[in-house]
């Protein structure tokens, strides 16, 4: 129990997908201009990461390892992820056309969001149980969503600040991301997973 909690905290905060592993940076910079968009992206990605990690766990265990097809791992994982993304896209388009509009190109691009593949590959490396793998994937995704929303909040305020022309736009966003990563370093040592 304690190990599971520590593992989840580690996945969400200490080794945060964005701030510590530097994965999923394109959506991190791309759809964080508004909090609600970032939250929508976080939810969509959380769903995709959790579902595809579960499926990938099964594929890894019962297909790739069982038949010695390790070399096919990336291809099959991408296949599974792409399907999950397509499914998510359909649901969002049906349920919230405006969110669909706002996420725009970044929604199909979840497929190539390295955070998704990254988490799946990490799981494949670590040989966790199904439950642990699912929780790890969910915690990583939650950490991703948390940072997305925090960063969107910061950028919303940044949009109102009189940033010097030289730093306006991506430069200041990267500086903020760096400072945020620095703040998250405070968690280091809580969990070693």
């Amino acid at each position, binding site marked *: 129990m304690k190990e599971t909690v520590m593992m989840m905290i580690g996945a969400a905060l200490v080794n945060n997908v964005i701030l510590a592993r530097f994965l999923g940076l394109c959506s991190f910079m791309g759809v964080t201009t508004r909090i609600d968009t970032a939250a929508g992206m976080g939810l969509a990605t959380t769903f995709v990461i959790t579902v595809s990690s579960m499926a990938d766990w099964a594929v890894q265990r019962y*297909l790739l390892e069982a038949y010695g097809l390790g070399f096919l791992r990336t291809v099959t994982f991408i296949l599974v992820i792409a399907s999950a993304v397509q*499914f998510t896209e359909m649901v969002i*388009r049906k349920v919230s056309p405006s969110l669909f509009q706002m996420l725009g190109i970044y929604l199909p691009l979840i497929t190539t969001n390295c955070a998704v593949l990254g988490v799946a590959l990490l799981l494949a490396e670590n040989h966790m149980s199904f439950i642990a793998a699912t929780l790890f994937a969910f915690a990583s995704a939650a950490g991703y969503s948390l940072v997305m929303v925090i960063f969107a909040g910061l950028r919303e305020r940044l949009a109102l600040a009189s940033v010097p022309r030289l730093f306006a736009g991506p430069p200041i966003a990267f500086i903020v991301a760096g400072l945020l990563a620095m703040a998250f370093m405070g968690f280091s040592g809580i969990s070693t997973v």
Partner: protein
Amino acid sequence: MLIAIASLATLGLALGGLLGTAAYYLPVEEDPVEAGLLALLPGSQCGQCGFVGCAQAAAALAHGEAQPTLCPPGGRAVAAAIAARLGIQVDLSAVTDDRSRLARVAEEICTGCCRCSKACSTDAIIGAAKQIHNVIREACTGCGACVDRCPTEAMTLVPVPVSLQHWIWPKPAPA
């Protein structure tokens, strides 16, 4: 090798089938964006945006081929509404607002040819043939379509003076 091909093919087929089923149960109606945009535009088909009419402008907006600020008669209200509908940020400072100009007939030159009233998309010009025409202020959008049609240059656009009720405090100078 065969196992690899077979397993990939099976996986692909299974996922494809899943998605197909999902697509069947989650159909999406025709893109409502264009219709929504058309509803926001003035519909006077004045052509100042460079498109033939408002429907074409709405289509261009929906496909991202035009800026939300394309509609001069709509002013900032329409530009802001379009930007909100498309979920994009737009700089409204360049959009002029508040019916700055109105058409006026110079009565001493007007020949009563009726060309201007035919061009007006909001029926804002009244007057029968051989009679001096006049502009209904409330109906004029200041689009200027009549100005081009007038053979005697009797139509002009004149600025509307700011009234007490319409005066706006200037934005404070940046500190």
